[in-house]
Every structure is written in C-alpha cells, then in structure tokens.
C-alpha cells in the first residue's frame, strides 16, 4: 500500500494538490483494504477467486503437464469413451506435436520432456473422433479462451475508459456528440461488423503478418474488444459525470492541471472500482461471444483449439443414436465452472466495492 501512495506523490504537482491527492489516496486506500476484507469474508467469491487462480496457473503451465498433444491425430471410427485414471493412469507414446508455440512455451515443453519423457496421461476424459485427448484439449483450449477474454477485455478497457472519461469530463456538446456516436454504434448489429472485420482481416492477413508481425488471432482479439468497449464507455461516463464537479477536481483545475492529467490521474482512479466490476462481467461475455463465433465457423483456426470450438463440437453430438456424452459434458463443465466463478467474483467485487453496502454486512 505504501507503494501506491508513492506513485501518487511521485506524480504530485503543487503543494495543495499533493495534499488533496494524499487525502484522496488515503480514502482510496481504506476503500481497497475494506473491499479486500469484505471479499475475503464472502466465501463464494473467495473460493471462486481461488479456483480461478489455480485454473489460470494450470492453463499457463499446460505445456509442462504430462498431457498428450492436443493436436496429434489418431483417426478413430468413433470417439473413445473416458478411461478412469485408476484403470489406466498413463501410457508412453507422447509426441512433440504442437502449432507454433512461443519461446516460453517451447522451454516449458523442453522441461516437460525432460521431466516425463514420452509418458503421458491416459484418456481420462475420453477422446474425440480424431483420437485427440479431451483433457489435453480442454487445458490447451483454456489458454486460447483466457487469451481471447483478457485481450478483448483490456482492449475494451483501454478504449472504453478513455472515451467514457473524456466524454464525462468534457461534458456539454462534446459529451452529447460522443454519446450519440456510442448510440449509433449500439444500433449497428455488431455481428455484421464482426463478419466484415474478420473477412477484411483474412484478406490482408499476409500483409499484416509480414509487415506488422500481427497474426490473425491478435486481430481477432482486438475485433472483439472493439465491440465490447461501448458499455464500458457508458458506465465510466456516468460515473465521471457525477464526479466532475467534486471539490477535488475543481481544486485540481484551479491549480492548472491539464485535462489529460485530471482525467487519468484524478478521475480514472476514482471510477476504478466500477470498472473492475464491469471487467469481471465482460470477460465471461467475451468467452461466450468466442463460442458464438465458433458456432458460426468464424472462430479461431484449427489445429488451435478453444473452448468455444469444443463446445460447438460437443453440441453437434446431441442425438439419440449415440450420445458421446463426454464430448458434451466435459467442455461444458469446464466452461460453465469458469464462467460461474468469474461471475461470482464479479458479484463479490461489486458487493465489496459498493460504497452504499459498506459496513452493512
């Protein structure tokens, strides 16, 4: 916490401003501390947070785990049902077969090979029709889904907060026009925009990759993020609107602080709580949107795998001739548990950060 005060002071300008900022920071600090305490007391939210942390760690360390490759094909006539770990814990025969991995992931795979050799876990959750291990696909798919969600959320954060805070702070005619633009964008069916952007991106993929080093996935994340900033902008603008005539803002203005400074140093930290709450709610929405795009066949490319892709594959299996239940249940379970946890954390954070509820528990 001392650090946080440090950065505020480090950025401080005049004496009075520093004083005011310190006062504001002091208040903020107790808010965060209080929120943290309240979050820990909310058992559902706390365990959800722990679950998410473990889950993120597993996703990050996926290359290190002794899982089969999520890619190697072993064509089968039919998907193979799960084999319980106590029946078959694992087997040999791991092949180093992935899409192009990052440098870190390559080192992790090196470590995995050093640790486990060619030993890999058995098909505990079954395989799909192409003989690929469902557990491995769920774990590797989580990486894609988390990446999509985080990238899109950050993108929406960057655009939405800036836009909303500026509109709210500047107010008047500018605010009016900026918000009308948001209204107009709201009225365009975003699915059109996505289809168009994805097609256009595909068209220029070679140029983008060669010239700018941006791959298709990155653009995919940005596109989704670019859609989700609208609500964020509205929320932030509403908050800033109620704060722009607060005394500490007037004081900063009197002291000659620039607009940029006022918006980013004084206003944004004060709306951070609502932004965080909204962010935890955006991430599940983005994950569902990724699944929706996969349903339309506009998702990420094989051999890469995402939860959306797995969920779609599973939903295709619903029929009374032969229900390959492991293809339906496990991906849905992983996705459901994660999104549930995210939502619960979001709820918990909102409760914890809502000043009106403070001290009432």
């Amino acid at each position, binding site marked *: 916490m001392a650090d946080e005060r440090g950065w505020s002071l480090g950025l401080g300008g005049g004496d009075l401003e520093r004083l005011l900022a310190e006062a504001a920071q002091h208040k903020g600090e107790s808010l965060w501390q209080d929120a943290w305490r309240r979050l820990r007391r909310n058992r559902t939210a706390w365990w959800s947070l722990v679950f998410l942390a473990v889950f993120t760690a597993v996703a990050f360390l996926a290359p290190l785990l002794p899982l089969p490759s999520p890619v190697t*094909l072993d064509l089968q*006539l039919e998907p193979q049902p799960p084999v319980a770990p106590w029946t078959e814990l694992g087997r040999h025969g791991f092949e180093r077969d992935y899409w192009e991995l990052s440098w870190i992931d390559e080192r992790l795979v090196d470590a995995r090979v050093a640790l486990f050799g060619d030993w890999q876990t058995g098909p505990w959750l079954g395989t799909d029709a*192409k003989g690929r291990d469902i557990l491995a696909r769920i774990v590797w798919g989580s990486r894609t889904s988390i990446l999509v969600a985080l990238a899109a959320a950050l993108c929406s954060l960057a655009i939405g907060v800036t836009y909303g805070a500026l509109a709210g702070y500047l107010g008047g005619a500018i605010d009016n026009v900026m918000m009308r633009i948001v209204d107009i964008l709201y009225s365009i069916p975003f699915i059109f925009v996505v289809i168009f952007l994805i*097609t256009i991106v*595909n068209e220029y993929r070679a140029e983008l990759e060669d010239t700018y080093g941006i791959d298709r996935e990155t653009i995919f994340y940005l596109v989704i993020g670019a859609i989700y900033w609208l609500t964020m902008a509205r929320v932030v603008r509403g908050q800033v609107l109620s704060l722009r005539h607060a005394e500490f803002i007037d004081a900063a203005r009197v002291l000659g602080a620039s607009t940029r400074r006022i918006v980013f140093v004084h206003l944004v930290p004060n709306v951070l709580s609502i932004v965080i709450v909204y962010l935890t709610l955006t991430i599940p929405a983005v994950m569902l949107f990724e699944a929706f795009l996969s349903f339309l066949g506009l998702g990420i*490319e094989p051999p890469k795998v995402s939860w959306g892709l797995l969920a779609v594959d599973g939903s*295709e299996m619903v029929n*009374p001739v032969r229900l390959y239940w492991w293809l339906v249940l496990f991906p849905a379970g992983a996705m459901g548990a994660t999104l549930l946890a995210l939502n619960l954390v979001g709820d918990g954070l909102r409760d914890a950060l809502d000043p009106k509820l403070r001290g009432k528990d």
Partner: protein
Amino acid sequence: MAFALLGLAGVLALGLAAGTRLAPADMTYNNGAEVSTLDPATVSGVPEGRVLKAIFEGLCVKDPRTLEPLPGVAEAWELSADRRTYTFHLRADARWSNGDPVTAQDFLFSWRRFLHPATAAEYAYQLWYVRGGEQYTLLDDALEYVDGEEGPLWFQELAPGRVRVGFAGPELEVLAGGRTLRVDARDGERVARGTALCRYPFGVDEQGVYLPCDATVLRVNPALSREVDEVLADPCGAQWLAELEVDPAALAELRAAGRLLPGARYRREVVEPHLLGLSAPDARTLVVALKAPTPYFLQIVAFYPLFPVNRRNLDEARERWPGDWELRWMRPENLVTNGPYRIEFRRVNDRIRLRKSETYWDAANVAFDSIDVLAVDHLGTSLNLYLTGALDWIDRPITNVIPRLMPREDFDPQPYLGSYFYRFNTTRPPFDDPRVRRALSLAVDRRAIVEKITKAGERAAWGLAPPGMGAYPTVETAHARSGDVAADLATDVAEARRLLAEAGFGPGGAEFPTFEILYNTDQTHKDIAEVVASEWKQHLGLNVKLLNQEWKVYLDSQKNKDYDVCRSAWIGDYADPNTFLDMWVTDGDNNRTGWSNARYDELIRQAAAESDEAARLAQFVEAEGLLLEELPILPLYYYSTRNLVNPRLGGFHANVLDEHFPKFWYWKSDAELARDRAALPPGTVLVDAPGPAAGKYAPAARTEDR
C-alpha cells in the same frame, strides 16, 4: 401490473403461434435450405430442383432407378439421322393447373424466355446445345444489328457518326471449333461499302465480315482475340471489332430501310423465326435443332431449368401488378404449374407445403395428397427430427454417427456422381512444378480419409470422373496398387520424397515454403484438411497451415486464384464425363487452377463435335489421362449418397445423381414392408417405420402390390 401485461403478452404470443397451425402432411422431408426461387428458368441448385420436379414436368422425366429418359409431357420423340434434330410429340392430356393444355408453344415461350438475357438465367448455357441458343442469349438489346447479306455485325453509336462494331448473330456459330480470324481493316483506313473488315476460313473458302455502308476505320480493337471461339464467348463485351466513323445520314438510311435493327426487333424478327433452332409446327409438336450431336441432350431436356412456365400466368400478373409482378406470379395462389403437385403454402426458411394436383395428366399414379418440404440447415437438428419421426427423409446425417447408422435398414449409402478433390494454384511456385503436385498427391492416405473421416462408404479416388457413367472407364493417376495398403502407402511416400528432392526440395535442397490449405466453413472440410496437413507434415515434413473462409470469400479467393491449395468438389449435372472434364480447358470459367494444356483443350473440343460415341469416350479418356498426369488437382474421393429414409417410403430409389422423384412416392403397407424386409441382407438392423399400416397407394396402383 407488469406481470399482468406479460401474461397477456404470453397468451397473445401463444395464440399467434397456434394460429399458424397446419395439419400434418402425408410425408415430410428436409430439403436442407430454403429454395432461392420457384422460377425454373433462374434456379441452379439441388434443393430448388427437388421442389421443381414435384410441381413442374418437362418433356421427359427420368426413370428413378436408371435415370433413362421416360415420356413426360412428350409422349414420344424421334431423332433425325444426322442426330442433330429432335422432334417431340406432346401428349394431348397434359394440363396446366389453370386448366389450359400444355402446348408446344408453351415450351417455345419458356425456352426462349430461359435463353433471353433479360431473364438472366444462370443455367442458360444448358440450352446452348440448341442451334443459335448461345448467340440468342448473348445478343445485347442495347445494340443494333445488321440484317442482310453483310455482317454478321452489331452497331453501337458512341457519338453521332462514330460507331463501334462487333460480331453478332447466330450465323457465326457455325464457325466455332478452333478457327482463326484475319483482320483486314487497318487504323485510319477508308473502307467502302461491301469491303471485308476481317476474314476467316470456312470450309475450303474464306468468308468475311462486310460493312453495309462506307466508313473510316478509327481503330481496330487492340484486345481482339484472333480465336473465333474466344470472340464468340463475349462478342458484345470486350471482343468488339473496331470503331468506325460513318456518315450519320447513311446510318439513318440503313435504319429506314430496315437493314439496321434494334436488338429487340432483330431478336424477334430475324433470330427467332430464322436462326434459333426451336420451332413448333403445331400445338403438339416441338422441333429442336442442335448445333452438334449431343448424346446427353435428353438428360438435359429432363433437367429442371428446362421445365415450362405458363405464359398466361406471367401475362396476367404483369397486367395486374405492374410494379412487382416478377414476385407476384410465383406466389402460391398465383403460380400455374403442370407437375404432379402444386404449391399450397410457403413460409421462408420453414416449409413448402405441396398439394396433389388434380389437373395433372397422370394424377391416378400419384399417391400422396400432401408433402412438406422443410428448410432445416442445421445437420444435428435435421438428424434429430428424423430420428424422432418428424421427418421421413434427410439427405445428410452428421458424420459422427454414420458408423452407428451403417447397419440400419434406413441408411444405405450408394455411389454418387461427385468427386472431392483439392485444387493446386499452378500459377504459384512451387505448385507450378508437376513433380511437386505429384509428390503431394502421392503422400495422402486416401483410405484413412474415406474410412475414418467421411465413413459412409466413399471410395478413395485417384482420378476425377467417378465410376457410374455408362461405358466410361475409371481413369487413375499413377500410384502403387499391390493391394497391400501399408506397403502401397510406403512406396508412394518414398516416390513422393524422391519427386520432391528432384524438384529441389528437402535434404540438400531448398526448404519447402509454408503454405495454406483453403477450405470453406464446414466440419468435414475442416477434418479432411487437418488430416491432409498432418500427413504432409508427417510424410514429407512440410509445414501446412489451414485457412478457413466463409463461402463467398472462399469462392472469390478461388476465382481470383488467391490460394495455394484449395478444397473443391464437383457434382455431375448429368451422367457423362463431359460434365467433369470440360471445365479444365485453358481459362475455363471453372478451371480456377491456372492449368493449361493445348492437347487437352483440343481433345475436349474434338469430343464436343464428335459424332462417334466410342471415339468420343476415347478422347475423354485421353484427356483425363493428361489431367491426371499433370495433376492440377489432387483427387481424394468419390462421393456416396447419404440418404436416411423411412423404410416405409416406396418409390424412392438410389441412383448415381441422387435425384428423387415425388411423383413415384407412396407409403408401403405393413405387408409390403414385411416382404421387402425379408429380402434385406442378414445383420441389417430394423428400425421403426412410422406411417399408415395400410400404406398409402396411388389410386391406380395394382392391388397385388399392396
């Protein structure tokens, strides 16, 4: 309050839903997609064809088993000795649903309408086998045409006294077949009336294109091809002949004398009566003159774009709704049809309700009173609807359950006249090297694909044209075929490695560039691409990426040759090798690989004009052999049909075009069903066969069949 309102709304919604209730039809099947139109002239798809076959009838129909032509509206026909003229005799009792008799004039009207550029028929080229048909379509109404000795020419007045001229008229068609032009006119030259602008060989003589008035040549089209065939492909567009300066008074004089006719008049007064090979000597006789002998012409006559439409239907609609008659005449309440069924009800993306037509000449042999045609595009949903008894026929179950469907009596995949293959972009290195293409082709284990991915008894393909086209044999590209699968694959892979090394790639050579397999959004295409990519990686060490594009973008990429390797397929329109092979000629519209082979082009052209059937097939065999030697394509497998059909449905037969004819359908009685089941091979799993126990037979069906 809010609850009360909502309750009200809910009741309203339910009422709305219940209000549209329809009594169940006798039979229901899934068409897979909404039909784009019911106008026979402008359709081009399988779902549309299925509905049109129920509501219209052409001169011939097809035998549901063999697809041989059977009498339809025509009760008999003859072919002239030179095999260029068909005479169709129409039956006297053929009726439209408005009571009018179906006459030869109806066909004349419908086929001219089909060819007419204003109709903009996608399939118009199917009738270009008729003499003058192609030029009839390509005539541009915005131009003027010379009628008389001179010509064949069209005129377009760019400015007063300044005209552009080009080749015109069906007369030119006799020239097709590899002739070359010699352009005589020079830029700036003064040309007198009656002078030839250009010449071409004709038999032993030379013929020319002459001017009907004096003129000065301003410039000859620099882009004009010297190949008559190329000129004929686009005579009113890029292939104009020259721009001239003409005295405006001379033009006015020609017009006054009726020598220079506006397009519409030229079509009506010159082409229709004199040049187009269609005529109707009386109401029950239709004479069709062909450009060249066309062995599969009767199959085309039975093809749905050539079904007739009712002229009164269109004329009345045009009169009543001048603004939107083109939509109105096809409304269920207005559409006049001549087939076994008529449209009773239609809702976009939901269903078409067919009702038995009482005016149909053979109504006594039609069993069902009503048929529902659904437009469910989700494969899983379609399968579930079938399995819960809501549908009686679907043509595509999801691939994953096929192993479970195989032993069932209601699933019986049969050879289908379609081919699945990859195109190589031969304009892009390294795919411009035939050795590379051969190597890539050899290193794909087709058996794994047909057994583990498509699963419905598809046959591994080493050639393009599928078996099942009469006397045409299966032509294959060279590969190991000892019969031992593993050994064959090993031999082929070794050969592939050798070919790649020979082409300069692999150990000691250059690194093979990373490339992409392009496919359109679809589970099976994705699966196959994954397998092919992984085999190329495993066997040849190549880095392959997959690129999925939605349908329209995929088509555009293919058309503009913006791909490396691209998933493709071709379904035969009729059972003749021509439908698979004529597309690969140089710059053919459907070639899309950039591949070109002069000998191949020549063979296809010869085959089109060949009147000896055996010689014609031999030319096709040689052509396909050339194609498979150079492999601009990578054949993967020949299709199978995938129909899941209620075992009670009678009159539904497998055939190589997977065409089915509602006219012959009926419900079998329990007795007939039991008889048929007794003949099934042992091990067949019997399934529930919903439907009336007594069956539902056509009024004229023989009682001993029931």
